[in-house]
């Protein structure tokens, strides 16, 4: 009997924590076998078998009794649980048997990675005084390591629950349009400070209106208001007014959109979807807590990073509510899966 000659073998060279990892083996058809056994660790799940006619699942793995075409086996493997380490390996072994005798073994190694966010530096204490420049008051350094791009959502608490406090540009703008739609025509005329091509504005306005009509832009306003607004925007008699209203806001939308686009990535692998956070400090505020929630490209959320900073308020007039930006410096120390293996 001839030995197994591999035509093609593959395991995806790297994968994120919950990514499905393609694995395959193709061999010359002259190899004889009657059973294939796939062995894998208990935290690995075989999501889908390719080209398999009959199989059984046993305690240690999967026994394949028949393939559909004789020389190709493929499957997807996935880690069942959340990754703790930034890099972990899992061995998946494929044994070919003939008459109870082991004829060939092939071992695949899956390299699984996760991104990890950690706190590098934060102020020990925030001291508010009459002279302090609040734009430079809160500076935090964060580090991203491991592998994978992350979407970070900072949440702030100055006492009670955490809230995501940041600009939500489009919704804010759409909300503004929705809340002003009842205004008289004359009120809609705003002084033009910036020149924008009219035909271009028209086409942008049309697509924006279309998206609003289709409900693709969710508006956080009262349900009854929203229904009224939808009815108003969809009424053909209002077409001119709708266009005028959106036109009035579109140049603002475009600028906001460009800025949002240009400010969204504070570093290569970090996306700050809602912009830089800020906090409101009131007279009774004694401590600031920031919770950095983050998830990878597959939306797997990892345990958040929390920072707690005491606040000392030395202002003469403490009744004034302060809006303080939180400046974050991002440092990256990423792993290259190709260099590591």
């Amino acid at each position: 009997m001839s030995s197994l000659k591999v035509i093609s073998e593959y395991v995806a060279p790297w994968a994120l924590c919950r990514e499905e990892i393609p694995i395959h083996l193709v061999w010359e058809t002259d190899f004889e076998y009657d059973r294939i056994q796939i062995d894998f660790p208990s935290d690995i799940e075989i999501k889908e078998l390719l080209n398999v006619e009959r199989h059984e699942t046993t305690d240690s793995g999967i026994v394949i009794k028949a393939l559909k075409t004789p020389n190709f086996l493929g499957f997807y493997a996935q880690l069942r649980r959340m990754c703790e380490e930034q890099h972990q390996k899992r061995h998946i072994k494929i044994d070919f048997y003939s008459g109870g005798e082991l004829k060939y073994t092939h071992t695949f190694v899956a390299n699984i990675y996760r991104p990890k966010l950690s706190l590098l530096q934060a102020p020990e204490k925030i001291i508010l005084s009459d002279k302090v420049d609040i734009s430079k008051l809160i500076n935090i350094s964060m580090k991203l390591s491991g592998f994978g791009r992350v979407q970070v959502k900072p949440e702030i608490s100055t006492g009670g629950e955490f809230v995501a406090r940041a600009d939500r540009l489009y919704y804010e703008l759409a909300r503004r349009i929705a809340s002003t739609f009842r205004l008289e025509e004359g009120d809609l005329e705003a002084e033009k400070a910036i020149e924008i091509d009219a035909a271009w504005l028209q086409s942008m306005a049309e697509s924006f209106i279309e998206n609003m009509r289709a409900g693709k832009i969710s508006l956080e306003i009262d349900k009854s208001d929203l229904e009224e607004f939808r009815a108003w925007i969809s009424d053909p008699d209002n077409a001119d007014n709708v266009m005028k209203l959106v036109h009035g806001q579109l140049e603002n939308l475009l600028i906001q959109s460009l800025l949002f686009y240009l400010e969204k990535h504070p570093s290569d692998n970090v996306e700050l979807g809602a912009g830089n956070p800020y906090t409101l400090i009131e007279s009774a505020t004694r401590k600031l807590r920031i919770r950095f929630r983050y998830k990878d490209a597959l939306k797997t959320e990892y345990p958040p990073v929390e920072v707690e900073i005491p606040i000392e308020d030395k202002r003469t007039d403490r009744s004034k509510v302060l809006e303080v930006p939180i400046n974050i410096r991002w440092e990256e120390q990423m792993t290259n899966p190709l260099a590591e293996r």
Partner: protein
Amino acid sequence: MGRTDDKSACGEIKSDKPMNQVDAGIAIAREAASLIKYLQSFKPEVLSFRIDHINKSSEIKYLLSIPTGIQRTTRRKIEIPATSGFRVYEMWDLDQIKKVDSIWEFDQGNNKWVLDPKKLPNSDRYWLTMKGNVSKEFLDKLVTVKTAENPTVEKGVEKYWLHSAIRDVRLLETIWKDLNIERVNLDVRIGVERFFTSTIPKEVIKRLQIQRELLEAIASGDRSREERLKFAYRTFPRSSRITPQELYNLIQRLVSGEFFSSFVHVTPPFVIGSIEPITQPTVLVPEKVKVGAQTDLGFNLPVVKGDLNFERKQYVESISHEIGESLPVKKKK
């Protein structure tokens, strides 16, 4: 493949019971195999069975032997029920290299394609092509595609792994050995926003921020703030003067398939398919560019692996250059 693909709508599946898309696909594939029985008396030989993943169409080619002489006159007509989901696309006389598909007739009453051998020219060998459509659901059942969610970055090149395989060849039963699934498409989504963050000069961004504040001041009716910001806006360096619209158009051009295509490569047997920017409904500027990598799969190639490489460093250098060219020239000191 041209528009002639749709030359007949008569070939669609007709059934009393509604069939789901996958079952319909399997039925089509089975019918494709069983079509051969209608052609049995002409020694049919399947030359190829092709499924086009992009166009969601299928095509089966037969070699038929229809000898001249007494046999032809005594033989019955060839009848192929249109319920097969396939339609006659073309027929060639291989001895004279001439198209003869007009000889086929469609019998509306009986929902059949009919060929009377007596009407055929004086040749023995013919090449018949039948075509049908397949659904996306059926194709998903037939092939599987996966691409890396996040790329590795090495020496300024982003790498994404690509993997595609036939899921279940038995769907196609007896004809799978002749099967070719062509242009199986794998989409890789390349994030591009971050490159603009680093290449658009800070002063351009600062000027946009002032514009934003100015519009807010006008809207709120704060006259003194408005005057102050108008002054700041007018006195901003000339080199940053690019209008929001120009900047938007510039970004659109730099993420277009035309500009982007020279920075992406795939390892064989993959080839680059379509390239198009992806824009979300709430965001005006594209965040990602979708690049299609295409390959064929078949009996001899049930699985394909490869990489898509994006020349990130070169791309950033090029967009940096283009942005520089689009800004007004700085005044010489």
